[in-house]
């Protein structure tokens, strides 16, 4: 049924009633099944807490979440950066360009935003760097720092300054791929010395994790800013 508002017949963009009832009943069924599954979880399971705490001193860091992210489950983190790059590739494909130098600027940001971004961006860089360093002992690490730095990039773009939009294609690709590439070298390196993939040597674990985290944070920041700037309309798309 189309709802009429004033003189315009507005289509409500919703499925028809039988389809809605079917969707409602199926969602309700899924809800019931999930509730039964949640009630059925065993009572005294601590998960993998004991395994993590027992092996924490061999991981190279002292914070359990960072140890899980960058040592025990480093494969997930590594491929997560791959997913980020894949999303960026999708955006570049949709925009039909190899880099973001064609991105249009937003409309006039005004003096308050430009002044505020000049004030905030150095502080944001410091905060991100601190989070990156803090990851070994407290909540922090590569993705947190990368997200904070990415916010700085978005703030710069909204204020009219150029950051990722000023990079040529080669530099852009290098910046995006350096995190994944260094992680690839660190992951595949042990296989050349007779170990498994991602099996860091015990005395170098902390150093390798810090190296991987730094390049990862830089790459993630570039990618996150590009995910935002890449969705903006391009200058060549604008009507003359």
């Amino acid at each position, binding site marked *: 049924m189309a709802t009429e508002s004033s003189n315009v017949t507005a289509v409500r963009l*919703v499925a028809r009633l039988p389809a809605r009832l079917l969707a409602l009943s199926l969602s309700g069924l899924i809800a019931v099944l*999930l509730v039964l599954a*949640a009630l059925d979880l065993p009572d*005294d399971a601590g*998960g993998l807490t004991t395994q993590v705490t027992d092996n924490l001193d061999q991981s190279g860091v002292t914070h359990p979440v960072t140890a899980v992210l960058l040592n025990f489950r480093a494969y997930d983190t590594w491929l997560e950066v791959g997913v980020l790059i894949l*999303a960026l590739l999708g955006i570049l494909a949709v925009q039909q360009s190899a880099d973001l130098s064609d991105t249009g600027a937003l409309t006039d940001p005004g003096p308050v935003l430009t002044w505020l971004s000049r004030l905030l961006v150095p502080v944001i860089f410091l905060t991100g760097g601190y989070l990156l360093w803090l990851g070994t002992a407290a909540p922090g690490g590569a*993705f947190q720092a990368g997200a904070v730095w990415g916010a700085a990039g978005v703030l710069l773009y909204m204020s009219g300054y150029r950051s990722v939009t000023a990079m040529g294609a080669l530099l852009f690709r290098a910046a995006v791929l350096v995190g994944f590439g260094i992680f690839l070298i660190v992951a595949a390196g042990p296989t050349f010395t007779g170990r498994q993939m991602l099996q860091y040597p015990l005395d170098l674990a902390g150093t390798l994790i810090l190296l991987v985290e730094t390049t990862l944070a830089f790459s993630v920041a570039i990618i996150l800013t590009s995910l935002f700037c890449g969705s903006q309309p391009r200058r060549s*798309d604008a009507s003359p």
Partner: protein
Amino acid sequence: MNQFLIFAFTSIALFCISLYALVTYAHLLRKILAINIMGSSVFLFLVAVAYRNRTETPDAVPHAMVLTGIVVAVSATAFALTLTRRIHAETGLTYLPDEDDLE
């Protein structure tokens, strides 16, 4: 009804409500919002599972999974929004026209 069950039922309710919204509404932004809320409800469930038995330290593995999931959700949302913008720029519509199912 302990603390974990409250979080679990909330996340299940959010998941199923947004699943319904994903299927029912045709506007692409609503679909993207629904997928985001489904993702957030799963994160809520994972974080609740991590602290289920009130041990001294919460289980670190679901926390790491949630961190990974948040980043993946953000990037997928960015890609979906770019596609939506492109669809709107090319066709002028904000929904995928399929006139048999819509009213």
